[in-house]
């Protein structure tokens, strides 16, 4: 994979919606941050991640549009894999696989 392509994957995720849906169903941790705003969704995400094992999938449900830019950045800085975001109007489901 080229450097640019890898970068785009890190930032935007690379999974198709149906795959993300499947991954969401099997998430080890589900964080409901609906109605909360920056930095609360991030704080809840980092708290949940502390109790999880490498390779597990974390699902964040939020309606703060900014999580779509902040979660990929958080993943890049910590070495987690940002899998992608499913959008249902204002409701976002963001998927992250924790680094091993």
């Amino acid at each position, binding site marked *: 994979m080229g450097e640019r392509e890898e970068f785009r994957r890190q930032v935007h995720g690379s999974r198709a919606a149906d795959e993300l849906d499947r991954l969401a169903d099997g998430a080890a941790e589900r964080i409901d941050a609906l*109605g909360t*705003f*920056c*930095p609360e969704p*991030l*704080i809840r995400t*980092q708290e949940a991640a502390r109790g999880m094992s490498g390779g597990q999938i974390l699902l964040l449900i939020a309606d*703060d*549009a*900014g999580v*779509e*830019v*902040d979660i*990929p*950045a*958080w993943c*890049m*800085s*910590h*070495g987690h894999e940002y899998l992608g975001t499913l959008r249902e109007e204002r409701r976002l489901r963001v998927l992250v696989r924790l680094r091993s």
Partner: protein
Amino acid sequence: MAQEPIRALGLMSGGLDSTLAAHLVQSLGVEVLGLHFSTGFCVADRHRLLGNFNNRDKPYRNDALHAGAQLEVPIEIVDIKEDYLPEVVLDPKYGYGQGMNPCIDCRIFMLARAREMMRERGFHFVFTGEVLGQRPMSQRRPPMHTIESEAGLVGYLLRPLSAQLLEPTVPEREGWIDRDRLFGFSGRSRKPQMELAERFGLVDYPQPAGGCCFLPDENYARKLRDLLAHRGTEVDPDDMMLLKVGRHFRLGDDVKIIVGRHESENDYLERFREGRGAAWVEDFSSPLTLIEGRPSADELELACRITARYSAGRAEASLPVRWNMGPREGQLRVEPVQEDSLLEPLRI
């Protein structure tokens, strides 16, 4: 046997200086964890709550996280809202700056938290992006000494951008950090930092000196002073959040109203209705007005008249305004306030 890595905690706002400091310390072989303190007074948080987008049509981002992504430095968000308000904002030992910004107490508070984390988690030292002489309140030599000392970090606080102008710290004396590779920046100009950013290949950083904190802002400070004058220290983080939006009018010693300026402010105010009264015009596009305190009948009528003034029906001779105060609710037909001479003395 592999040598134990040197580990440092860096205070990261995501601005240019803290980003440069983190990059510099990391480039000297130190393992860095960035700490981003969430005080509840961040300007970007308000944009996020209002659902605003920036001039590139993107949601406002958390700059510290983006700096961390750029540098591949992990960032931890540290939520200090609950303690920050009573311990720093309401009663600062070293006073306020031009607004209600207790910059010295703020630095002490954050660095003391960083010191606790340093000890608990086995980090070797703490660093910041402070530049000597850059800010009038907290970045002069005497307050920088005070901050270091009161935070309990004497010798363990590295300011890599100005290090060559300051006493050598333990990390420099112990050889954990090569002092010769640190800088001697001072003063208000950001040019040296911008040149360094270019050298480091850092291109995506917020405009220098943009500021992310509401407390130095004169409009915010005026509303906060008013609140403290009327409520003393009986305030909470929700009160602080409400100072960030709307038109504020004081109708009585314990009665204040906040009038939404547009739909997204109305949505924002809606979240804070619990424990507060409200008024709005049903027949026209209308602000949501939050009512704080226990208004008299005259004060409630005035709240309704001000609400009507900012509705789309302001030119009408009279308008029905819905109101509620806890379990009590009703509708009152009022004349929208027309006279600025009545309104302006009430505006906070």
